[in-house]
């Protein structure tokens, strides 16, 4: 049965409102730029809208996070290449991000430590920290078992602690 467009639109917007903050924070930990992070989240929702006939909206949160993770990783790589060839602004500074997002102080060392994590650990860490989804849903979104989500999260935190110390 085909769901009318206006109902699909309502479901998509409800999903966006419910998960905007989590998705934005996940994307932000890849791009470290608020505009880029928001663009990535919007790109993901435009893609969801294009394939709306195949989306099960009540269970679409995992799909939204997976799409955001993929697009954010792509944006991060593209930005790195642009900076390499000097066609993009320099790496966004943590101070700049702080000024943009008043009150959110991100320790530069934390940021560098997250950047240094392997992709498999970084995606699990940011999903566990910001998505408010359970391990099973995160695992389904990332294509790994729920138990692996927990072990990767622990590994990621251990790696951060090793870099940052106990402070």
């Amino acid at each position, binding site marked *: 049965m085909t769901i009318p467009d206006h109902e699909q639109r309502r479901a998509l917007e409800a999903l966006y409102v419910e998960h905007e903050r989590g998705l934005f924070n996940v994307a932000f930990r890849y791009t470290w730029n608020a505009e880029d992070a928001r663009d990535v989240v919007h790109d993901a929702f435009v893609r969801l809208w294009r394939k709306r006939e195949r989306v099960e909206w009540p269970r679409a949160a995992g799909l939204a996070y997976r799409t955001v993770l993929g697009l954010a990783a792509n944006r991060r790589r593209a930005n790195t290449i642009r900076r390499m060839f000097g066609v993009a602004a320099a790496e966004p500074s943590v101070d700049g991000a702080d000024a943009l997002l008043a009150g959110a102080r991100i320790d530069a060392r*934390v940021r560098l430590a997250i950047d240094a994590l392997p992709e498999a650990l970084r995606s699990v860490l940011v999903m566990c920290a910001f998505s408010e989804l359970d391990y099973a849903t995160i695992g389904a979104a990332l294509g790994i078992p729920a138990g692996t989500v927990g072990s990767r999260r622990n590994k990621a935190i251990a790696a951060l602690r090793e870099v940052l110390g106990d402070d």
Partner: protein
Amino acid sequence: MIELPVIDPPPGGLERLRARIAGDDRRRAKLRWVPVLAIAAAIAVWFAYARPHAPPPVAASTLLPDPSVGVAFYWVAPTTTPPTPRSSPELVDISAVSIAP
């Protein structure tokens, strides 16, 4: 303690998303015609150039008498073009002409 503060996204996200989706819908509605036009253009080009043409009719060969040989001898014209008017040749040495048996 490792601090991963939650950041508030910039305001107006939902309105901007609505505008993005509306713009994307408009763009895709226009692009929907591209494959149709491309197929129509390909068919038009095929009709104009690539369609196999019927071979031109070939007329039966005509027999052209050649009085220069001196006997009942005919050249077979390879094409349908009318024979060019020939002037009567002057035989200088008739013994130079031989006819295969």
